[in-house]
């Protein structure tokens, strides 16, 4: 057992924190107001090496890995959870291409995604997200193309991604259940369009929108994995990339709450003394700290296992469930420390609360996570 964070990851944390402070912090207010993602940030994320964290050097990335990714997203999200989710879903658009794609697909898409372009992975439809069998989008093979019809919703990075990994129904399996396949879609494919953009309470500045497929023609070489492997690819991506991504954002929110609450409690004077002297406030700080640490270390373990190539789907789900719930609690407690000031938009704690709220259902609600965890418990204990 060794819980020491390697020196290079500590340096990564420091560097990303400086990057976030210099390049992202000045943009947050505008993102909150406009809901628009600042596109000028994309090449900067590339120069920092953050777009290529989970892409191997063979395909233009740096392959620093999942624990590194967890730390980087955590630090980004301390400043802006919206940039955090943009980055995390970008990685969800890269990883399945490297893991399941052909050599041609990897060479065609990954170097650009590692440097300067945003990717995405879109599964959820109006008829359901976690209910994958409820997916209605279809793909039919016609000559050299797959023709896709249907729509995806709440698709993160909808308006900025240059590559989408999507899943559509392509027939039935031997048992008569719907079979799905995964595709790599570029926004200028014929029949593809971007629909409305959701106006969210949190993650403001990160796009969540509709992807519309209207006889969309996808070249047959853009089938990702084998026909019928769509569900496997989707679940693996959500479990191993999406959930730890949400967990990392949430850990960032936990620590942002901790720092703001502590700072405020030392500055705010009531009854002639800083409120940090009051036990009622100290208990809140202790709670935020405890829940933040618990979330962080569950997340680090899961991501470390991923880097070691160990099976970790349960650990990823556990980390995601605990971290998102804890982020909401930590933000709430930080708001309580702030009292009336938590209702004022100038103080960021209210933003943490809104962002944490949106993090909970992203990548599957807590109830869905609990189903997965209960299944694990019943099987193993």
């Amino acid at each position: 057992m060794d819980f020491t964070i390697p020196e290079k990851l500590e340096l990564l944390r420091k560097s990303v924190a400086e990057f976030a402070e210099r390049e992202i912090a000045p943009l947050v207010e505008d993102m909150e107001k406009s809901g628009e993602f600042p596109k000028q940030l994309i090449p900067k994320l590339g120069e920092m090496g953050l777009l290529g964290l989970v892409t191997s050097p063979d395909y233009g990335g740096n392959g620093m890995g999942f624990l590194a990714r967890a730390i980087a997203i955590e630090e980004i999200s301390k400043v802006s959870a919206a940039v955090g989710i943009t980055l995390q879903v970008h990685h969800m658009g890269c990883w399945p291409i490297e893991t399941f794609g052909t050599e041609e697909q990897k060479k065609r898409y990954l170097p650009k995604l590692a440097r300067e372009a945003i990717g995405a992975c879109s599964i959820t439809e109006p008829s359901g997200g976690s209910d994958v069998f409820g997916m209605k989008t279809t793909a039919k093979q016609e000559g050299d193309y797959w023709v896709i019809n249907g729509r995806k919703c709440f698709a993160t990075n909808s308006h900025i991604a240059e590559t989408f990994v999507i899943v559509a129904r392509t027939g039935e399996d031997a048992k008569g259940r719907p079979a799905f396949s995964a595709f790599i879609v570029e926004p200028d494919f014929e029949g593809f369009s971007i629909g409305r953009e959701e106006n969210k309470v949190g993650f403001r500045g990160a796009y969540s929108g509709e992807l519309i497929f209207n006889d969309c023609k996808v070249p047959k070489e853009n089938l990702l994995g084998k026909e019928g492997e769509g569900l496997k690819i989707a679940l693996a991506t959500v479990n191993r990339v999406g959930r730890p991504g949400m967990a990392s954002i949430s850990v960032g929110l936990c620590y942002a709450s901790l720092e703001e609450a502590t700072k405020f409690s030392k500055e705010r004077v009531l009854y002639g003394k800083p409120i940090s002297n009051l036990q009622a406030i100290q208990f809140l700080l202790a709670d935020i700290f405890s829940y933040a640490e618990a979330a962080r270390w569950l997340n680090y373990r899961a991501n470390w296992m991923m880097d070691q190539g160990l099976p970790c789907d349960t650990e990823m789900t556990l980390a995601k469930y605990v971290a998102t719930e804890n982020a909401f609690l930590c933000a709430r407690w930080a708001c309580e420390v702030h009292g009336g000031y938590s209702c004022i938009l100038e103080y960021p704690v209210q933003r943490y609360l809104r962002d944490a709220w949106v993090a909970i259902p992203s990548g599957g609600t807590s109830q869905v996570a609990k189903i997965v965890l209960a299944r694990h418990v019943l099987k193993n204990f």
Partner: protein
Amino acid sequence: MPNVVVCVKPIPDPRHWDRLFLDPETGVLKRAGIPPALNPLDKNALEVALQLKERFGWEVTVVSMAPPDTTKALREALAMGADRVYLASDKALAGADTLATAYTLAQLIRKKASPFHLVICGNISLDGSTSQVPAQIAHYLGIPHITHATHVETEDGQLFTITMNIKKGELVFRCTTPFLLAVTKDVNLPRLVNVMGIIAAETKPLEVIDARELELDLDKVGLKGSPTRVRGLFIPEIKRRREILTGEPEEVAEELLNKLHEAGVL
């Protein structure tokens, strides 16, 4: 390969200075648990060097004198783009004031980083705040120095035009290499360390060198070689005075200005 030397100082990370603690019994400053970080202005110095490296193909050598557990901070210099680090570290060097520090660093530069075109330093360290070491290194190396630099220009990498901020105005100097330059934060915005830099830094050389290898005169280093001593440390009272002035505008204005003058802020 032509060489530019950057002197850096690892300091207790300023983000954690609230954890500094003055032991009331011993009067010793405790910095335990505060991680080391590069002195902020040293990054500006390194940025000047890296830009020269990009233009003229020079190698960037970083030198430092510090305890051995500061290599973590020095690795950041490599991640920014420096080619190698030499760290002078030895029990005999402990307790050095600026004179002993400058002597040691100059010796390190002579032994390991010569010949050089330029030695670049941050103008001041955030912890010690003396800004004395750069000029004293220059003395020991027998080269001219220019401190408080806000602009560094050169066409050919030999003749430099340097602007020195002297508050009331600016002095523009012309100087040919080799010389020592100490820069302020106005000189540039240091680049951020990126992931590729961090990975590259892992395999770059970072050599720790002891006093014997440096062939130092042991009477001139560490506490023994330091003419100054710290007689005591104390934490200043920062209570606000809360002096309330009332009266006719003319009178209070005069009274206020007198008070501000006494407080040394006019």
